[in-house]
């Protein structure tokens, strides 16, 4: 994997995140305590905590369920740390990963600029020229 296929990894995380969001929505539907916002700030904080926990658990479950597809993109043996890390990342939500993806695509464009700059000099303000060969004699 190179930087160039980092967008593929992030696209996978978006897919996992969308699935995790669906899992959270389904589970929330079964429990009104989770589904309805509370007016009491203390109870609302508690509800949000459980939703975050549910998102992480959902992320891990989705990653495990999708492992045959995930391993095509992510190298490694898939021990628990890898699954937990991906689950945690998936629980960030698809909106978050969409934003990251747009950043990464922008960075790819910048890297093309970096290459151009490297070919031109530190500031990259003007393209380098390739002068014709001269002789060392007056």
């Amino acid at each position, binding site marked *: *994997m*190179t*930087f*160039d296929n*980092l967008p593929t990894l992030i696209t996978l995380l978006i897919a996992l995140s969308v699935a995790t969001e669906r899992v959270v929505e389904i589970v929330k539907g079964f429990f009104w305590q989770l589904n309805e916002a509370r007016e009491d700030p203390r109870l609302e904080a508690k509800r949000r905590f459980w939703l975050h926990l549910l998102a992480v658990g959902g992320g891990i479950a989705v990653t495990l369920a999708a492992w045959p597809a995930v391993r095509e993109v992510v*190298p*490694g*043996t898939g*021990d628990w*740390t*890898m699954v937990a*890390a991906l689950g945690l990342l998936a629980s960030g939500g698809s909106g978050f990963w969409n934003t990251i993806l747009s950043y990464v695509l922008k*960075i790819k464009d910048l*890297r093309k600029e*970096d*290459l151009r700059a*490297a*070919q*031109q*000099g*530190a*500031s990259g*303000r*003007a393209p*380098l*020229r*390739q*002068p*014709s*060969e*001269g*002789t*060392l*004699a*007056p």
Partner: protein
Amino acid sequence: MPQTDSLARFFDTGVSRWTPWHQSFEQPVHKLYDTWNADPDRSTLGGYVGTTKGLQAMIQRSLDEERSLRALGGGWSWPPIAATAGTLLNTRPLNYRFNLRVDQIHGDRKLVFVQCGMSIAELNVYLAAKGLALKTSGASNGQTIAGALSTGTHGAAYRVGAVPDYVVAIHLVTEPGRSVWLERDSEPAVVDSVAGHVGAELVRNDDLFEAALVSFGSFGIIHGLVLEVDELYHLNAWRTKITLDQALWDAIEAADFDGLDLPGSDAGFPLHHFELLVNPYESGQAAGDLEVFASLMYRHEGACPDGAKRASQHGRFAQGDGTLELIGKLTDVFPGLTDDLSGLADKLKFKDSRNVCGPPGDVFRDTTTRGKSASSAMGVPLNRLREALEIGRVAILEEKAPALISVRLVRASRATLAFTHHQPVTAVFEIDGADSARVHHVYRRVQDAVRSAGIPYTYHWGKIHKLNADRVRELYGNRIQDWIDARHELLPTRELRRVFANTYTDQLGLSD
């Protein structure tokens, strides 16, 4: 007096902070100028002399303002070797190239004269068009020739050496109104008149020349270089896994691979490039015969062998520094991921390929990515490589650092401060990885352990090291004083020496 065209042109970039290619630090600068020849489309002697005068005017201004002045090449080094809070001159656009006639050359050699800003990539293209090739270069090609020289950049050409070993004359701009054409007295490169053509004072002195080769921009501004080159040759490259067993260790320690059954060796061409990549996580906790990736290149003076795949600038292999940065951040937070992600780094660095062939310019390719990777290269004698490698392998495993080890063999250099000076061949033992806290811990641990084991070692000046003035004296001994004496001879006043010093040379005790 040589005829002078218009002086060089200096364009103020307006940049107040400069970052090198690998983003290893950020340097506030007083001014960063792009430096251009008056006529960038034609290499003319008058234009070259005009640029020399422009550089001398810049030195005068730095003396007047009491500021440091550094020539900036490709910005490839990790430490602040080219950095200064004073004035930075981007020399990258200075890429004139000159043919040397046979009657201007001492001996039967192929020489070209090029300006300091020419990159290795440009040189490869220029030389290939003339049916010539560099004897060796680094693994990538973005460095300028003057930058690669000044840091002692090397490849893995164990019969050839590093970049300083094919530079045979240096045109050094040292002060207002003075520049010197420096060559070895024992092996003059060009006839006396050439120095006069470029308006320089001819100095033939082995000690000064060997000291100026690896001098980090501290001897003045290197404006031009005479390079000894070869007829265009081809490299037949093989990259595959092999076992680092006792037979291979014996060959490495003798720097003699004849008779060894290496991939690609059956065609009978001489081995030119020898490099190993060790992934400590794949090779396991126990020492013994290690499975390593070997990169072997055989030199063909003629065309590529039948059936070989053609090397191309646009092939699938590319480095992935940006991904290394991501790996570094992830493994700092989740150490348990290191094992898996180092496998990924392994794949980034080397892909299995067999029987690929091309001229050097197509084999050593463009590095297209930029990011916070880390690299540290240590030079050790061949007979101590095995111990050093084991120290590095264990340190990486115990620190759970996302890093790989590569080993390259380089013929010993004559340059006074070449880090590849261990005779007869220096083993360069390199730890590359993500720019993470764990990798930096490994660098410190390895330096301490190698020193404790009594292994003679040196460090690549352009890569990460943990040296200070005392340690540099300890490693290089009398060579340091020889280098300082040579600097005093070429830069006779304290003021001049201050102009060509920076915090890096201060830290290493090399400024005065």
